[in-house]
């Protein structure tokens, strides 16, 4: 095990420590509440580790700079919130199409537009999945503690590198500003995934920076590699990365960009279950709502009601298997979330079991309470 440090810090600070532990050495961003502590932490810590922080003119250019830096071999990240996340969608799409790894931390706040800038929400879930135009898939992780902000940040970078794609880290104001004790364990080299490099015996002519024949991405040398030239484009491209807008190629690229994530769901998704084994009432939730839901489960259990919880640590791709298992075993499912039912709608899509699916929503910028979650159940 690597060096262990105990700290009492907020979620946004733990993200910076996690990113540096994961090997990130480039940050480009634009300050926005409630994520700014990540920018400030990156500006302070990156040069101390030989890395670079740059504050760009907006979130559009920030995303572009992240992709450029990653293509040049540096693991890169940024942090933002709703309005900035909207601006990032353009080049998030470029990252998906060009298959360039990077990590985006969205510390969610109330919206749309400026909304209630400093108040929490979990309402960017659908934007995370569908904000980019065109068919694609995406990986998104949602933390529920400061410990998660450290540990799952490392996971996020590993997934980005392994699947050669931008990964979204969907935190929220509650977790970003929450102070807790965190145990930071420095990862061992084998716990860090770095993008696969081409076989050095290949010639440039044989090298394919984009492969569509398997569900795993092709090797990715950095620009500046002394042997291999690298070519990326946001246009539909062939396996050499050259412009290729023929019907057959468009079709295979579209399928590949979805399949490389959806066919690897078992490897990508992380869930946690709490007292689910004998549960008759199941809660399915994510992010800050997990904390209130856990307390709700404990209160119900004390009353003799068999309640349990499934936490979707990975929200995209959805842990379908685990959600179906809950739906098939319990009579009632409640989905607590700080939006008007974005996850609940997804859960209903899997409900082939006649399970009653209820919602517990809160959208007033105040953290959802255990009592409110229990009330949603009682009102039915």
């Amino acid at each position, binding site marked *: 095990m690597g060096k262990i440090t105990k700290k009492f810090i907020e979620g946004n600070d733990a993200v910076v420590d996690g990113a540096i532990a994961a090997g990130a050495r480039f940050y*480009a961003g634009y300050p926005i509440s409630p994520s700014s502590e990540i920018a400030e932490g990156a500006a302070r810590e990156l040069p101390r580790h030989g890395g670079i922080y740059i504050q*760009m003119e907006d979130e559009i250019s920030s995303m572009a700079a992240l992709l450029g830096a990653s293509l*040049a071999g540096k693991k890169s990240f940024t942090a933002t919130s709703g309005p900035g996340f909207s601006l990032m969608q353009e080049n998030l799409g470029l990252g998906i199409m060009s298959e360039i790894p990077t990590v985006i931390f969205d510390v969610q706040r109330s919206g749309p537009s400026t909304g209630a800038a400093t108040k929490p929400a979990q309402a960017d879930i659908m934007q995370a999945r569908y904000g980019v135009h065109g068919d694609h898939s995406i990986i998104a992780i949602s933390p529920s503690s400061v410990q998660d902000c450290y540990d799952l940040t490392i996971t996020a970078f590993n997934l980005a590198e392994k699947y050669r794609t931008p990964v979204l880290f969907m935190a929220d104001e509650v977790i970003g500003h929450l102070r807790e004790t965190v145990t930071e364990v420095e990862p061992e080299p084998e716990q860090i995934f770095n993008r696969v490099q081409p076989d050095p015996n290949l010639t440039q002519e044989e090298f394919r920076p984009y492969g569509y024949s398997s569900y795993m991405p092709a090797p990715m040398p950095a620009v500046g590699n002394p042997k291999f030239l690298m070519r990326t484009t946001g246009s539909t491209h062939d396996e050499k990365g050259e412009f290729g807008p023929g019907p057959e190629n468009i079709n295979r690229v579209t399928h590949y960009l979805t399949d490389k994530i959806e066919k690897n769901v078992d490897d990508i998704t992380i869930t946690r279950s709490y007292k689910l084994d004998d549960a008759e009432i199941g809660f399915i939730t994510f992010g800050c709502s997990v904390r209130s839901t856990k307390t709700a489960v404990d209160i119900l259990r004390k009353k003799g009601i068999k309640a349990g919880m499934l936490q979707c640590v990975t929200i995209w791709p959805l842990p379908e298997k685990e959600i179906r298992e809950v739906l098939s075993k319990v009579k009632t499912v409640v989905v607590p979330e700080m939006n008007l039912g974005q996850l609940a709608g997804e859960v209903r899509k899997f409900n082939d079991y006649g399970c009653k699916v209820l919602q517990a929503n809160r959208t007033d910028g105040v953290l959802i309470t255990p009592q409110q979650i229990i009330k949603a159940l009682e009102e039915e």
Partner: protein
Amino acid sequence: MASYKDYMLFDKLPHTWCAGCGDGIVLQSIAAVFAEMGLDKHDICLVSGIGCFGRVDDYLDINCMHVTHGRALPAATGIALANPNLNVIVTMGDGDSVTIGGNHLIHCARRNINLTAIVANNYNYGQTGGQYSGTTPTHSITTTSPYGHIEKNFDICKLVEAAGATYVARATAYNPVQMRKLIRGGIEHKGFAIIECMVACPTHYGRYNKQGEAANMMKLMNEQSVPVERARNMTEEELEGKIITGLIVNKQRDDYYTDYKRIIDAQNIDA
């Protein structure tokens, strides 16, 4: 000695540009400068945007990153900072550079990022059918200014000079010798360098504005050209409608990475 052909993907020719378009002259100039300087193609990364000139990467056998419309400079900023040993070249049209990407241009110039921006200015959006851009001259006819353009156009060189660019030059497709010389100077310059290359668009701009065929447009471009040395002694009225050519700004100021490296060297606990 290397030839410009060594840096090109000849099997991709003929190129996509219209007959008489000036973009090919700029492409050949870029590849010729690489050859002249004897650059290792692995040490070059070209970043291009969207538009007619955005397609320039298709024909070059070097590292290429083809990005979204207007975002070539911020993507190149990431590359230049992540690997300061690369020769980063950014190719843009007038749409990319001063219209949709105008904000990125002035900030990139202000930061003095070590890269070379090559702008092919044809006064309009060629790829989408000849609509007006931020450099379309006032009163011009385009497909979206059918009654004459009422907006004042940007002077790209003046704009970036005001923003703090340390190397600013302009050449026309009529004079590829000068174009090559200025592009080479830009690549050799440490810091933000920009070379505005005036190119004819006979298909759209020339046709709508009755400038004749490509050869006529080239001739006109040459007649309008005034060397910067002479322009310095001319009044604003005398320079109306003229194209000032040559090396307009050339000064030394530490580039962004050099300054940032000082911070890293002072703070680094890993080293």
